[in-house]
């Protein structure tokens, strides 16, 4: 097993064994259920597709929130406990440390997302939904979650404190979500740039309505790539300090 997968497996097991993992999972699943009952199912008669679209909208928001506590500990926590030294003195590359941690946290986030499958199953019992819509929605949620974790791991690399890392992630996510509002008040060509960079608005919209556009997949993978690369550079720069 390569060092990358060793780190990813240890990270996943650490989250599964920690109270934080259980608390995050319990809160997200409870909130998913509540929102499904009140928002997706509530408000009169609806088509199954509308219910599913609303469900994915709520799920995406909760996934973004869940990525904050999951990512804050990835590097800042290691530094606080002094265990980062173990990784830094091992014959592994810095990018393997970052990717290992990223994939470990992503595996947990995907597991958590898939645990909500019983909610769309309830729609299937009482209505009719397309498998394609379901797959597109979950794919979009996981891509969005991956992008949020990448932003989170970058913040975690910047700070020694997990709390500060969490605030940095929350601030960055909020700013990137609100880019679509900034786009509304800026002029061309900046409005297009901000609209493209907005984390949720246009890029997630296609997934939640059951469509997959390569442009949106590329966007989320680019966000992951950019922030994971930046986190690696931050980790490398720490060897000089």
């Amino acid at each position: 097993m390569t060092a990358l997968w060793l780190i990813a497996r240890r990270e996943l097991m650490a989250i599964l064994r920690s109270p934080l993992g259980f608390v995050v999972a319990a809160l997200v699943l409870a909130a998913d259920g509540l929102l499904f009952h009140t928002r997706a199912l509530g408000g009169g008669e609806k088509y199954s597709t509308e219910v599913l679209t609303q469900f994915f909208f709520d799920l995406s928001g909760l996934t973004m929130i869940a990525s904050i506590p999951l990512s804050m500990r990835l590097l800042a926590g290691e530094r606080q406990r002094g265990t980062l030294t173990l990784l830094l003195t091992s014959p592994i590359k810095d990018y393997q440390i970052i990717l290992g941690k990223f994939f470990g946290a992503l595996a947990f986030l995907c597991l958590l997302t898939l645990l909500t499958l019983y909610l769309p199953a309830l729609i299937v019992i009482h209505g009719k939904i397309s498998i394609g819509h379901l797959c597109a929605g979950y794919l979009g949620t996981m891509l969005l979650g991956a992008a949020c974790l990448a932003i989170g791991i970058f913040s975690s690399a910047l700070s020694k404190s997990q709390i500060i890392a969490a605030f940095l992630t929350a601030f960055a996510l909020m700013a990137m979500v609100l880019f679509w509002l900034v786009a509304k008040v800026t002029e061309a060509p900046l409005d297009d740039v901000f609209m493209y960079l907005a984390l949720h608005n246009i890029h997630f919209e296609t997934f939640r309505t059951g469509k997959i556009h390569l442009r949106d997949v590329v966007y989320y993978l680019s966000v992951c790539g950019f922030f994971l690369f930046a986190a690696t550079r931050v980790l490398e720069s720490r060897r000089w300090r």
Partner: protein
Amino acid sequence: MIQCERLTKLFRGVRPVDDVSFETRAGECVGLLGLNGAGKTTLLRMISAVLTPTSGQLSIAGADVTEEAHSVRRQIGYLPENPPVYGEMTVEGFLAFAAGLRRVPRGRVAERIARVGAQCQLEGVLHRRIEHLSFGYRKRVGIAQAIIHQPALVILDEPIAGLDPAQIVSIRELLLSLKGTHTVILSSHMLGEIGQLCDQLLVMHLGRVVACGAPTELFGSPEHTITVVATLGGRRERVVQALEQLDGVLQTEVSAGENNTVKAEVKIAADKRPELSRTLIEAGLDLFDLQQKRDELETLFLRLTGEPTGERS
């Protein structure tokens, strides 16, 4: 094994390591001695390729630490002051994880865990979670992870800090067992302990090496005058008489010791110690203990570092 030439680390305008040069041979145990803030940890972090030097040359077994950091990391095992262990893992799981990171072949991991487990006396706790272990055991786990891949160089930062006397004795034995099979470099500010373990000492102060050599050269060279405390059984007058017969005694102070013993403090040239013990035994006295006066070692150390030898504020 380690070749260090004019090594400097500049950090926010401060030089925690300043123009340090030294060399060590394979299989040697080298001690870094210095007060808090002397630059020991920064130097060890550079040797272990965690920190990159600002200037100077540093190579481990011929591999440059800056250019070939990856290759250097294969040859080292590092234990920082606080053991880098994951509390939620079992000792066995953690050692398997550390072995995987250090590229130990999968088929040999179990054998290596058994071996370092025996060496570090961890057999009884291999299946326990690390967070449930005492600090002494966590240090042992930290040493075990540092040697699991059989590195040529083992780097230990303050391996005996924070341990109780019983733990210090067992860790000392463990460190002695590493000598010969590995090159060991360790840091401490506990002069008595480090002097017993190391073949070579580097005394650091304010980022610089202020003295270098074997412990006897630094703290007990023939020209050095030392104070030896002897605990003896016999009459006080006989002790005084015996000491008067010995050449080279500069000053003696004989007083009553505990449990009907006689305590003699003798100021003498360091190379006269064998003669002193022979004279006392030939005089028919029972020699219970003979050691260099403890606080004198600290005074010598402070003299080397240029620190005032009185009370430090």
